[in-house]
């Protein structure tokens, strides 16, 4: 959960109040991940519950400051020092869509791939235009924004490459007669909710 860790990392720089945290998060991530102030407060509540931050009394202006605890600081350094582990199983919607589509009769997979590639390329062009419109970064905030845009660009590129690869794999499978639909298995499943008896 990187919002939680990100807020904690910002709090490691000094006490902040909720709205201030949202502003800090936005300017450090190029506003690419919109977070509403409600999410900020619910995250702060959980951080407080877990003993990673403490909540001060409201100051004269009514702002409630949150301060990181020693355990919170340790969690920040652990976070920065460890890799982000993505879910090991393929949960990518597109991968699942292609996997299902390839087992269905009468689905034009090549078309599915082409429609996706056109859309992904168009996003890639959009990100690139956004990047092209700005020159070299002149501040740490601009650099942070550029890193996020670059990550979107590289992810889109990877998706296009994967689609190209899938397309040629499919062409080979079609040629070798492998790309055939998987029919429904008519054997009675061993588990599952049985239909109500209708006697």
């Amino acid at each position, binding site marked *: 959960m990187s919002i939680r860790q990100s807020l904690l990392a910002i709090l490691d720089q000094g006490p902040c109040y909720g709205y201030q945290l949202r502003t800090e998060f936005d300017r450090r991530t190029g506003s690419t991940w919109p977070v509403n102030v409600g999410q900020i407060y619910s995250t702060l509540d959980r951080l407080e519950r877990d003993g990673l931050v403490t909540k001060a009394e409201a100051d004269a202006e009514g702002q409630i400051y949150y301060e990181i605890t020693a355990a919170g600081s340790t969690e920040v350094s652990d976070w920065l020092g460890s890799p982000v582990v993505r879910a090991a199983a393929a949960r990518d919607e597109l991968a699942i869509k292609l996997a299902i589509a390839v087992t269905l009769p009468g689905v034009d*997979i*090549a078309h599915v791939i082409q429609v996706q590639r056109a859309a992904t390329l168009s996003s*890639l062009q959009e*990100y*690139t235009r956004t990047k*092209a419109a700005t020159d070299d970064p002149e501040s740490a905030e601009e650099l942070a924004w550029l890193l996020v845009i670059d990550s979107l660009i590289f992810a889109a590129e990877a998706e296009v490459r994967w689609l190209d690869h899938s397309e040629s794999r499919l062409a080979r499978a*079609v040629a070798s007669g492998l790309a055939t639909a998987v029919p429904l298995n008519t054997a009675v499943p061993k588990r599952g909710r049985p239909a109500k008896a209708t006697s």
Partner: protein
Amino acid sequence: MTTLLRLDGVSMQYGKGETAVTALSGVDLSIQAGELVAVMGASGSGKSTLLTIAGGLTTPTSGEVIIEDSWLSTMSPSGIAALRRRALGFVFQDFNLVPALTAVENVALPLELDGWKHRKARSAALDALNSVELSDRADHYPDDLSGGQQQRVAIARAVVGTRRIILADEPTGALDSTTGELVLRMLRRRVDAGAGGILVTHDARHAAWADRIVFVRDGRIVDERARAGVDSLLASS
């Protein structure tokens, strides 16, 4: 809109009879001023052949190439060479600069070959170098320039004087990714200033700098937005 370059039903075949190999088949493509078109495709798809035909380096088996209103099929080889010097420039993966000439001399070379006076050619070359932010390297030899700088010299050479058509074949292939991006940025800037170009690449991230992306598959231009089913896939497998 000004059309700078047009390919009309261009086909290219190597060999004859049963052993003939079709590299391109009925390709239509046009490039406007201010437009960069990326041509993508796997190795051997015909995308580099397309570029050499577009630049008048190779004569197609059939079809027409029109560069700034000049129909190449009606011209002599020397006429085509003169048109090339005047209208377009290539940018290759390996820069292709003359090592014995300085940056500004490399950029001025096509103009001098075209009969420009030395001083006028040098002045135009300095303008072009300035447009890729390399005025301060004008008197350096290619060996003293980084890969990215050499490629920017090649871009300057492609747009020097009256040249407005840039034909780039994997221009970032020999560069690291941030230097490559800088080169694409310069290319994009020249196009936005009124040039037009074709960018041949197999890399979607580079193609994304273009206004339009087309695919070459088995010698044909495939429009990704058009419906193409398994039939076409079968035909290409």
